[in-house]
């Protein structure tokens, strides 16, 4: 019932500070297997019942972890991501906001030569409802079901998941991919994973102004889409040249406009909601057709 993460995923947490500890606890409550924590110098100790290690490699050797969740502050986050990639973890999720874009360029260049999937940075993480949560999202908004969901936003993701869940439309996997201009799993890649997942029957794509990932995703679905999709773009009323909260949410010149994204989805025959509240109805209609 999922992509990238499921009940067998074994998670280690890099950066077990206040935030890392809090969310590790929340994830365990949800049922996620949190098998290790990594903070250099803390090896051999125990935090909230989680065994600590000095390095990712030693944590993987000892526990068989196959995913990492990163809370390391921005100045050390790139190094933490590369350490996780070096340990050949299949899935790395980075919550940290504010990583310099040049660090992300180097990371994505390395990433392309490995088998690691990086979600984020500057993201809420990913959840396969009922099985595994790797991130900071409030779990109560999500429920298991057939709708695959990818989003560049955080809170808006919770809102839309809540709307879907209330409408009885559970989710296969929700991927909060992050609001930075250079990210590990861009929208088209995430859409492709959901399109190829046999347990996902419909896809919700939540985009924002800035870049052209939504256009590329629409292009991909137009050529290879196997299931219905519904899209939403935040920032239709945003002025050009202003960065709207997210580093990646900016219209520059004629690049990254909402109109261009909406047009691309419409050309791919993917309906675009005007408001989050319209999404559940459109998904239900798409599932019926």
């Amino acid at each position, binding site marked *: 019932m999922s992509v990238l993460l499921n009940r067998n995923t074994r998670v280690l947490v890099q950066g077990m500070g206040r935030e890392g500890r809090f969310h590790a606890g929340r994830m365990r409550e949800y049922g996620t297997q949190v098998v290790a924590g990594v903070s250099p110098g803390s090896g051999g100790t125990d935090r909230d019942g989680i065994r600590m290690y000095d390095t990712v490699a030693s944590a993987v050797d000892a526990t068989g972890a196959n995913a990492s969740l990163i809370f390391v502050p921005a100045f050390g986050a790139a190094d933490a991501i590369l350490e996780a990639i070096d340990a050949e973890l299949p899935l790395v999720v980075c919550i940290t906001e504010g990583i310099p874009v040049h660090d992300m360029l180097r990371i994505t260049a390395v990433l392309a030569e490995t088998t690691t999937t990086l979600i984020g940075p500057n993201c809420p993480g990913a959840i396969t409802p009922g099985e595994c949560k790797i991130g900071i999202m409030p779990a109560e908004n999500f429920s298991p079901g057939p709708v695959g969901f990818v989003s560049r936003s955080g809170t808006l993701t919770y809102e839309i998941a809540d709307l879907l869940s209330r409408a009885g439309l559970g989710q296969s996997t929700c991927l909060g991919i992050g*609001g930075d201009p250079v990210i590990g799993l861009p929208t088209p890649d995430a859409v492709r994973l959901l399109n190829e997942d046999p347990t996902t029957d419909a896809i919700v794509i939540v985009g924002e102004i800035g870049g052209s990932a939504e256009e590329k995703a629409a292009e991909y679905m137009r050529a290879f889409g196997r299931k219905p999709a519904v899209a939403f773009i935040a920032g239709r009323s945003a002025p050009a040249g202003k960065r709207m*909260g997210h580093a990646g949410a900016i219209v520059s010149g004629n690049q990254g406009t909402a109109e261009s994204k909406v047009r691309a989805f419409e*050309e791919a025959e993917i309906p675009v909601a005007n408001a989050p509240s319209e999404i559940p109805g459109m998904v239900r209609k798409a599932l019926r057709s």
Partner: protein
Amino acid sequence: MLRPRAHEEVWPATRSDRQRRDGTSALRRTFRRDSEPPASFGWPVKLHEHQAKLVLARAGIPIPHGQVATTPDEAADAARTIGGRVAVKAQVHVGGRGKAGGIKLADDAEAARSAARAILGMDIKGLRVEKVYVERAATVRSELYLGVTIDRDRRRPVVMLSTVGGMDIEEVAATHPEKIARGWPDPRLGLLPFEARRLCFEAGVPKALVAAVAAVAERLYGVFVNVDADLLEINPLFVQEDGSVVAGDAKLDVDDNALYRQTELAGWKETLADEQIEERARELGFSFVQLDGDVGVIGNGAGLVMSTLDAVRDAGGRAANFLDVGGGAKAAVVKAALEIVLSNPRVKSVLINIFGGITRGDEVARGILEAIAERPPRVPVVIRLSGTEAEAGRKILVGAPLVSRETMDEAASEAVRLAKEPARA
């Protein structure tokens, strides 16, 4: 119009694809030409021309001899020191200063003095000119464009070179896409000498100039990386009568996420008058963008706030601002946010849209209550609380002079309606 491309052309999604792609010739793919416009994007930390040129000069890129002046007398002195013909150039953070009369040529010190007198204090697109840069005028034979920015879609730096210099590169991309050569260097290797040469040959740079231009390109790329730039442009890159090249103008935008390790450049950052409120908001820990409508908006999460602005527009109104209090906002932050929004005299109603996750509805409610108790708002406030502890938050707000709505759409409609009502006595 977008058309589906061949399978390999769609952004690769799977590992096997990535490996296949990268198992072939990474460098060859790095240097593909295409006609897409450059994916440049500007971020807040912009440097002045004279600052950008100092950075270039330190990296060994030729720049004309120049000095900063803040008075006509200083400009005259600078012109005397430099000798010969000089250009007197306004230092402001906007494009198009030449067209606005912000650049004048002067043949001697007296002419430089009067040019500076005319330019200093000038208003260019709403910005007052506080300083000028006086530099030796180049003997121009031809002009090139050379720039580096970040291609978001390819997740690579992109180096652009064109023999159409002096023009806005987006304009060149629109009108003469074939006149721009592009290369996407591997960020781990940097711009290699052969890549720089290939750019020159592809752009049609005269053979005699290739060595000089390629050297500037390699150094420019080095600066781009070393200063954590989002955008670094030399436009125009002058080819002089004697065959030497020199940077005519320079533009440098630095990634503000990297300012912690760019301490010198961070010190050069200037806050414009109309950015002061945005800067204050940043200090308080939230992101704020001033807009020109009359409905003040506060929310949590960039995407949610953007959607709220869209809902305001769809309800027939105009938002006065974007304000994201961020994750886990406590009462004090919400209170500060409300104050900053209400400090805008144009605001006729306020819309607060909170979806509780990490942020708790009761914390938000307490912040609003405190702000209102301290200073009753001069305009109606509409609130929509949902998610974590929203019920507790709504209870806290019972009896407060607020309008509460269940959904984002309803709340937006109400806030727009209230903004349009004539002010109450």
